[in-house]
C-alpha cells in the first residue's frame, strides 16, 4: 500500500494537494487552455516554425550536396545525428513510463502530468524518427528498411539492429499515438461539449462520439489497461533495441551487455528531466498551479534522483568491467573517454548526471521550482552528452590507433539539431493549447482517490 500523500509529503501544507478542487473546476482549468491563444503564443509558434524551416533548409542542402557538409568523418561515422536520435527516443520514453507503467502501478500523482508526458512521447518519437533518415547517405531509399513486395524478392536484413530499430521505433510511434488518442477520447468529449463552431467539430473527431456510458467506460478501461500493458514491455524493448545499435557492435565502449537496462534508465532519467523542464514554465505561463502542484514535482524529482543513481551505477560498472576484464581495447577506450581529448565532455556529463541530481535528496530543492528547473536543464545537457560520449567518443578510439580522429560538428548539424528542438517544441506548443493537455477525467479520478485516502488517514488518527 502506497503511503498517503500527507505522509509522503511532509513539507507543504494540505492546500498544496489537489483535493479541494471540484470536478467543474478541473474542467474549467483544463478547458481554459483550449481558448483561442493570444498573439504572443503565435509569435512563439512562428519562432519555433522558423527554427524548423532553418533545420529543413540545412537538411535539403545536405541531401543535395552530400553528407560531407556535416562534420562526420572517418571514424566518427555516427555522431550528432545519432546522438540526437537516442536523445529524443530517450525523451520519448518517460511519457510512456508515466502513462503506462505508473498507470499499472496505480500511482495517483501521475494523473495531472501524464497527458503532457504522453504528448512529449509522441512528439519525441516524431523528432527521433527523423534522425535515422537525416543521417542516411541516401535518405530517399530509407524505405528499403521496410519489408515490401518487390520483383527481386529482396527484403531487409532482419539481423541488423537498424532494422530492429525501424520496427521498434515505428511500433513505438504507432502504439504511443494510439495510447495518446485513446486516453484523450473522454477529454475530447468534455471539450466538445464546451466549445462551438469548428472547434466543436474538431473535438468531435477526437472524441469519436464519446458519451461516457458505463458500457463505453467498460471497453475503454479494458483497452486502456491492455495498451498500458503492451506499452510497458514495448517502452523497455525500444530503448533496449536502441542500445543494441551499439551493444551488438564490437566496438570497445559499445559492446557491452549492460547497455539495455542502462539505456532504459537513462531514457527515463532524461525523459523525466524533460517533463520537468516543460511543465515548470507551462505551469507558470498557463497558470496551472491548482492542478499541477508541488506534490507532482516532488514525485517527479524523486524518480529523477532514482534514475540518476542507476545511471551513475551503470557508469561505474562500465568502467569497472573495462578494468576488471583486462581487455586492452576496453581499458584504452575508457581511459581515453575520461582523460582523452573529449575528457571535458565526460566530466561535464558526470557533473550533470551524477553529481547535480544528488541535490534532489533535499526536499526543499525538490519543491523549489526554479532550482528544479535548472537541475532538469543540467540533466538534459548531461544526457545529451552521455549519448555523444558513448557514440562519437567511443568511435574516435577504435581498434586502429592510426585511425583515431577528432570529430567536430559542422553548422549543418548544429542547425538541424536546433531545428529538431524547434520541431519538438512547436508540436508540443500547438498541442498544449489545442488539445486537452490536462487529463480531466483522470484528475477527477485522482481527486476521488485523494479524498478517500485523507479520510482514511483522518479516521486512523482519530
Amino acid at each position: 500500500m502506497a503511503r498517503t500523500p500527507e505522509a509522503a509529503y511532509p513539507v507543504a501544507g494540505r492546500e498544496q494537494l489537489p483535493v479541494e478542487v471540484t470536478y467543474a473546476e478541473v474542467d474549467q482549468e483544463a478547458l481554459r487552455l483550449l481558448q483561442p491563444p493570444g498573439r504572443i503564443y503565435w509569435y512563439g509558434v512562428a519562432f519555433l516554425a522558423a527554427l524548423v524551416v532553418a533545420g529543413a533548409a540545412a537538411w535539403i542542402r545536405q541531401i543535395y550536396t552530400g553528407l560531407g557538409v556535416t562534420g562526420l568523418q572517418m571514424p566518427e561515422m555516427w555522431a550528432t545525428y545519432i546522438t540526437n536520435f537516442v536523445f529524443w527516443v530517450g525523451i520519448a520514453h518517460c511519457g510512456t513510463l508515466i502513462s503506462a507503467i505508473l498507470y499499472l502501478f496505480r500511482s495517483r500523482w501521475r494523473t495531472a502530468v501524464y497527458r503532457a508526458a504522453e504528448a512529449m512521447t509522441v512528439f519525441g518519437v516524431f523528432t527521433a524518427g527523423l534522425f535515422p533518415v537525416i543521417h542516411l547517405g541516401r535518405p530517399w531509399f530509407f524505405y528499403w528498411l521496410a519489408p515490401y513486395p518487390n520483383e527481386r524478392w529482396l527484403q531487409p536484413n532482419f539481423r541488423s539492429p537498424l532494422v530492429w530499430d525501424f520496427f521498434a521505433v515505428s511500433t513505438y510511434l504507432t502504439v504511443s499515438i494510439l495510447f495518446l488518442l485513446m486516453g484523450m477520447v473522454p477529454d475530447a468529449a468534455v471539450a466538445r461539449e464546451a466549445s462551438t463552431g469548428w472547434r466543436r467539430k474538431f473535438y468531435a473527431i477526437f472524441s469519436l462520439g464519446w458519451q461516457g456510458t458505463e458500457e463505453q467506460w467498460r471497453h475503454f478501461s479494458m483497452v486502456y489497461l491492455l495498451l498500458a500493458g503492451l506499452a510497458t514491455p514495448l517502452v523497455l524493448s525500444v530503448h533496449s533495441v536502441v542500445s543494441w545499435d551499439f551493444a551488438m557492435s564490437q566496438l570497445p565502449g559499445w559492446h557491452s551487455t549492460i547497455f539495455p537496462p542502462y539505456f532504459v534508465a537513462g531514457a527515463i532519467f532524461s525523459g523525466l528531466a524533460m517533463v520537468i523542464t516543460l511543465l515548470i514554465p507551462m505551469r507558470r505561463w498557463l497558470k496551472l498551479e491548482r492542478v499541477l502542484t508541488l506534490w507532482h514535482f516532488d514525485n517527479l524529482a524523486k524518480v529523477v534522483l532514482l534514475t540518476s543513481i542507476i545511471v551513475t551505477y551503470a557508469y561505474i560498472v562500465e568502467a569497472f568491467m573495462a578494468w576488471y576484464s583486462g581487455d586492452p581495447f576496453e581499458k584504452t577506450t575508457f581511459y581515453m573517454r575520461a582523460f582523452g581529448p573529449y575528457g571535458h565532455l565526460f566530466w561535464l556529463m558526470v557533473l550533470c548526471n551524477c553529481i547535480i541530481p544528488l541535490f534532489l535528496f533535499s526536499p526543499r530543492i525538490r519543491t523549489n521550482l526554479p532550482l528544479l528547473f535548472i537541475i532538469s536543464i543540467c540533466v538534459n545537457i548531461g544526457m545529451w552528452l552521455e549519448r555523444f560520449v558513448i557514440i562519437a567518443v567511443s568511435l574516435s578510439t577504435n581498434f586502429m590507433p592510426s585511425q583515431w580522429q577528432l570529430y567536430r560538428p559542422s553548422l549543418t548539424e548544429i542547425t538541424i539539431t536546433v531545428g529538431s528542438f524547434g520541431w519538438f517544441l512547436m508540436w508540443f506548443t500547438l498541442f498544449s493549447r489545442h488539445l486537452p493537455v490536462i487529463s480531466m477525467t483522470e484528475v477527477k479520478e485522482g481527486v476521488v482517490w485523494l479524498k478517500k485516502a485523507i479520510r482514511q488517514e483522518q479516521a486512523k488518527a482519530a
Partner: protein
Amino acid sequence: MRRTIIAIAVVLVVGAVGTAAVSQKPWLPRPDVVQPIPFSHRIHAGLHHIPCQYCHEYARRSPTSGVPPVQRCIGCHGTLAQKGALTPVTRPWTDHKGAPLEIRWNRVYTLPDFVRFAHFPHIHAGIACQSCHGPVETMDRVVPVYEINMGFCLNCHAQKRASTDCVTCHY
C-alpha cells in the same frame, strides 16, 4: 471540408504524377525510339536469315555485343549496288549535312551503370538473343518487349541455376 479534401487530393495526384514524370528509370526500355535510318531487322534477320552475330560480332567474346560498323553494311550492299541496294545505306549522309559516315543510332536498351551485364557468357550458355530482346527478326523498328529489370534477370538466373550472388552483376 469537402473543398479541402479535394484540394489535398489534387495536390497529391499532381505530386505523384510529377514525381513519376521527372524520375528517371534508366532500366526501362524506351519504346519510342526512332532510328536515323529506316533499318529493318525484319528484312535482314527475318527475311534474309542473317544470323544476329554476323553483324553484332563481339557478342560472343566481349561484354558488349557491338553495333555493326558501316563497313559491314557496305560489305553486302556494295556488292548488290547495281540492284540499287546502296541507296538506303547512303541515305543518312546524302540527306543530312552532318558528319559523313556516322550513324548516330539511338539506344533502345539501356542498363544502369551499376549493372555489369556481359553478353559473352550468355551467348556461350546458349541463351537466344530473343530471350531478352524479343522477336527482333519480326520487327521493322526494334521496340523492347521485356522490361529488363532485376526481377527479369533473376528469374532467368534462378531457372537456369546461374549464380544469383549480388556480385555477379553489381561491382
